[in-house]
């Protein structure tokens, strides 16, 4: 089975200041995402989960190692080729600050399609917003939406575009239990038809819905679980 995205021996370091100390954040991570798969990434705060997602989705270059998206090596692509690859195949939901402040919720949802010069009907956009329970707020700008509502607009945006692979960085972190569960249901509907979801989460129940769970600790893969229960995930994180 071909993989949608993979990292091989991925290393990422940050240099603090000019000529300052070098901080290793990811230390030799190898992981794949198969078509149709739901991969969850868990681990303590600061363990490198967001950084892994950025590197895997091509938003941030790796320091060493290989990153491939749909079989193409990210490091070998020109900036514009990478932008086009991401635009056409990858969706990303950030931990926070996802939306363009000058655009309404509806315009934000339609933006990626517009950038890709792909047709998206007003009905599709409205359906995506209705799916996340925000039909009424379609004309609102991000500034007038709550943090959780903004997050749901961001989710609606990736859902409307139907990219091959969706990366989501704690998409339910800012949501109450009910709307969190609702958003999770929507995202969990992504894997299938050859499309995949990679999600960072602190929520053990959410992680337990994944096909596979990657447990990170100090920038390395501590363990990997297949179809775990919430209990299994809890144990893997704590021991």
């Amino acid at each position, binding site marked *: 089975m071909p993989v949608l995205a993979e990292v091989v021996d991925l290393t990422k370091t940050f240099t603090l200041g000019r000529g300052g100390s070098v901080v290793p954040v990811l230390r030799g991570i190898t992981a794949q995402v198969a078509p149709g798969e739901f991969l969850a990434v868990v681990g303590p705060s600061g363990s490198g989960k*967001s*950084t892994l997602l*950025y590197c895997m989705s091509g*938003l*941030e*270059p790796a320091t060493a190692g290989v990153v491939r998206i749909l079989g193409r090596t990210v490091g070998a692509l020109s*900036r*514009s080729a990478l*932008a*086009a690859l*991401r*635009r*056409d195949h990858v969706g*990303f939901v*950030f931990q926070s*600050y*996802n*939306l*363009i*402040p*000058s*655009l309404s919720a509806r*315009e934000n949802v339609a*933006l*990626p399609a*517009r*950038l*890709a*010069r792909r047709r998206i009907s007003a009905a599709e956009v409205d359906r995506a917003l209705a799916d996340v329970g925000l039909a009424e707020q379609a004309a609102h*700008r991000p*500034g*007038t939406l709550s943090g959780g509502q903004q997050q749901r607009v961001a989710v609606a*945006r990736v859902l409307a575009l139907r990219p091959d692979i969706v990366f989501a960085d704690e998409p339910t972190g800012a949501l109450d239990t009910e709307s969190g569960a609702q958003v999770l249901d929507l995202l969990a509907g992504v894997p299938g038809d050859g499309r995949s979801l990679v999600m960072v989460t602190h929520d053990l129940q959410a992680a337990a819905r994944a096909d596979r769970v990657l447990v990170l600790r100090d920038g390395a893969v501590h363990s990997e679980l297949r179809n775990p229960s919430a209990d299994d995930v809890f144990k893997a994180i704590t021991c």
Partner: protein
Amino acid sequence: MLRLIVSDLLANARIWLGTLLIATATAAVGAVAASDIQTAIEAGGTVALALYAISGVMIAFTTITALIVAGSVAGLTVSLQLRAYALWQLVGVRPAYVRIVVTTQLALVALIGGTLGCLAALPALGPLYRYALAESPDLGELHPAFGAGAAVPVVLFVIAVVTLAGTRSAGRAAHTPPIRSLHEIDRPDQRMNFARAMAGLATLVIIAGILVSLPATALEQLSVPLMLIAPLVAGVLAAFAPLYLARLLRDWTALVPERASSSWYLARSTTAFGVARSTATINPITVAVALAGGLYSANGTASGGGSVRTGSVVLLLGGPLLLALLGATATIFMSSRRRDREFALVVAAGATRTVVLAAAAWEAVIYTVTATILGAAAVCVTAVAGGWAAGTWTPSLGLGAVATIAGLGLVLTLAATVLPTAAALRHEVPQTLAAE
């Protein structure tokens, strides 16, 4: 208190550097006018008469430009930091205190900039006057004077303009519930307020006064009052900008269909949404267009197409034009961090570098074209008034000057939007988003 003031100045260095630059430039331009008067007082006789003749126009041009440019910049300085003020309030700083801190910051920066500007002007005054007045036989060997007596009023003027414009915004900042400022990063609308309305109406009264006096003015003396009209109209337009600018922007930019280009779409929505930001850039360019266009239109209309001497144009317009164009560029530079963030989000949503760079370029085009529309309207008022007073039906529109300044404005704003954006695109999206 001092720590809060200083640490905030450092954290927002980019914003405050812009304010400092404009305070410096305002003072330098003011110094030219002040020196004209001081030299006239000291020289006496025919030299004094010749210098007094230009001092009035110089002061008028400088004051109008300074009020609009320094006012726009100081207002922007505050509105870019509303979020920080909100955070201060949330940790327990009282609103009145926020206002004091902001006013002190502005006064401090204006004082430093004002002093620097006067010092910077000193070595330039001699060459400037010699060049500008070389064609006048009596004045060619002039040694301009500029002492403390002239410098202090200039510095005080700069402080007054900067703090007044800034504290009004600061007062608004203090009265906005902090949670709201945190939410609405960029306040979508800039409100019309009493001070703006009064300033606009007062300027209208001055314009009316000039118009009434025109028929009684001899043809050869008509050009001076006429050339004041266009910048004054620009002042009125700036004062009432909250009433119409967002609409004007939205309406004319709609001429390009939304489907035609994603970069235009992005530029259009940012400029129309961030009106506070757009106004700060548009107003100075409007003034620049009105100043230059107005001068040439006035001369062309009143003296039947007689040419204007380059030397006197440099002396009268050089400083104010420089200040206005510098102001437009500085406002873009000041808000570039926020622009970087927005573009990072657009890149994350799938935009290519080309789209982002094009959006930055379109933004400059939108600013310049909007300002040119407004500036040209102001020049038209001069032209029509001139045609009416001079009894000619072919008033000069100063089109060459308008086009030149618009072109210059476009080049500068393009540089100010595109270059920082290109630099920001070299950073990775997560880093740009994490900053601030």
